[in-house]
């Protein structure tokens, strides 16, 4: 038996000096930094394996079905009700102030395209899809299936994350377009029934420009990329058995929702700056 002399100091031991105590106060911020760095590392590797790895069409189609088809009713119900509520509330306000509802449909469509359709769809996907991804990958981690993937010479990012990334990005765009149609149709019906507004008056495209479509699609793509990366990162970093899977699913939905809000702010801000520069 050999007896080596290499000793390594554990950086996570309890603080013994005042300096170490101060360092421990900053640990939460370091952990947030680690999480963000980890998410970007997963994103970078996902892009790398999209280019260098094998394209698994079967896995991509399974995920397209899981993310897309299985979310259709959920999105339809949510956006349908949202369309009805928004038109009823805004129509009521407009009636109180000006009494003119001519522009209601046109402005509602603009708002849907720019903001509500992609953002609410992404929020819904963050709750339904991100939790599922984090729980599935997390349980694979705790049952050593991810280790078994690695021992079979498969890269977990390539095998697990890439198909989910591609499918969610595509389906967020598709579902956002679907959300516009559902919410606008629900809004048109509500306007007709509540305020007697003719559908032909409600359907007004005059407010819509390339900027609205561009901003809506950009947001949908950005959300569609962020949600699976954050969810898979949470799943791959599970530790501590089934309790860890629970923590990962919570982290996935919280972080994915936060990412949607932050990306919404950034893309909206950048979009208005670009629009200002162009015009």
């Amino acid at each position, binding site marked *: 038996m050999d007896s080596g002399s290499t000793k390594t100091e554990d950086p996570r031991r309890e603080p013994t000096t005042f300096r170490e105590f101060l360092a421990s106060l900053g640990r939460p911020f370091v952990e947030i930094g680690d999480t963000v760095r980890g998410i970007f590392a997963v994103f970078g590797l996902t892009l790398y394996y999209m280019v260098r790895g094998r394209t698994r069409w079967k896995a991509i189609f399974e995920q397209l079905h899981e993310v897309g088809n299985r979310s259709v009713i959920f999105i339809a119900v949510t956006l349908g009700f949202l369309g009805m509520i928004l038109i009823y509330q805004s129509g009521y306000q407009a009636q109180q102030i000006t009494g003119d509802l001519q522009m209601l449909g046109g402005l509602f469509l603009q708002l849907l395209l720019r903001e509500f359709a992609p953002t609410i769809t992404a929020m819904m996907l963050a709750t339904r899809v991100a939790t599922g991804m984090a729980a599935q990958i997390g349980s694979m981690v705790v049952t050593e299936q991810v*280790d*078994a993937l690695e021992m079979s010479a498969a890269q977990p990012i390539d095998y697990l994350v890439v198909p989910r990334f591609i499918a969610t990005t595509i389906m967020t765009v598709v579902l956002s377009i679907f959300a516009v149609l559902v919410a606008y149709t629900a809004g048109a019906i509500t306007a007709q029934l509540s305020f007697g507004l003719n559908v032909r008056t409600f359907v007004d495209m005059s407010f819509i420009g390339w900027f609205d479509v561009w901003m809506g699609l950009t947001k949908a793509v950005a959300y569609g990329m962020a949600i699976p990366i954050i969810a898979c990162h949470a799943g791959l970093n599970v530790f501590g058995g089934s309790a860890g899977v629970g923590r990962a699913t919570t982290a996935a939905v919280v972080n994915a929702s936060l990412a949607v809000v932050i990306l919404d702010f950034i893309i909206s801000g950048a979009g208005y700056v670009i629009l200002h520069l162009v015009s």
Partner: protein
Amino acid sequence: MIRIENITKYHQGRPVLEDVSFTIAEGSNVGLIGPGGSGKSLLLKIVCGLVSPDGGKVFIDDVDVHSLTPQELADLRFRIGMLFQNYALFDFMNVGENIAFPLHQEGGFSDEEIDERVKQALIDISLPGIDHLFPNELSGGMKKRVSFARAVIRRPPILFYDDPTAGLDPVTSSKIFILLEKMKVEGGVTSVTISHDIQGIKSICDRFAMLEEGKLVFLGDHDEIEACEIPVVSKFWQGYSDDELEI
């Protein structure tokens, strides 16, 4: 040859492996024993690069495992098979797909060749015709045997068995050990087996290493461990305890 040099690993501030060093010669079958929580499974995961150590190095055929790029590590793993403690069968694949998975990853096999090898693997583990079943339809013993078939399907020169008989009844355990013994008899395989089944591990290993609280407390062959006078080793090997349990 596998060379483990001064491996140290901490968990939540506590050392779980401390300065572990030993060498596994090519073609030898090492039994890694020790009480639960002594760091055996962790050491095995460090050896095959699944977990990074906080200190020390692992060399497989003079290649530093933890300095490899992911692609180089994947290439190295084509030569390693691992039977996991909790089966680790992919629950979204059926038995046939599970066993065939390492062959698909390696590439260069025709579909007919893969089908043929999967069929033969299922015959070898005495479970022919179950390739369409999913892992949740199998018993613990069947899962272990399928996991074994997946580990050896590439006929790797290095095999790691992490507690191959954990939670199995004695009859199923003996079936598993017969499979492991068959691999040993066929020869040319370097293996490390973690097990608490001393009788079983005696039949398939020619050298033994014992871990106690993360430290290597014994390394030697069958005769040496039989004659070992280190109390913790002899007690574990013979399976008795001085501690009295009040009932």
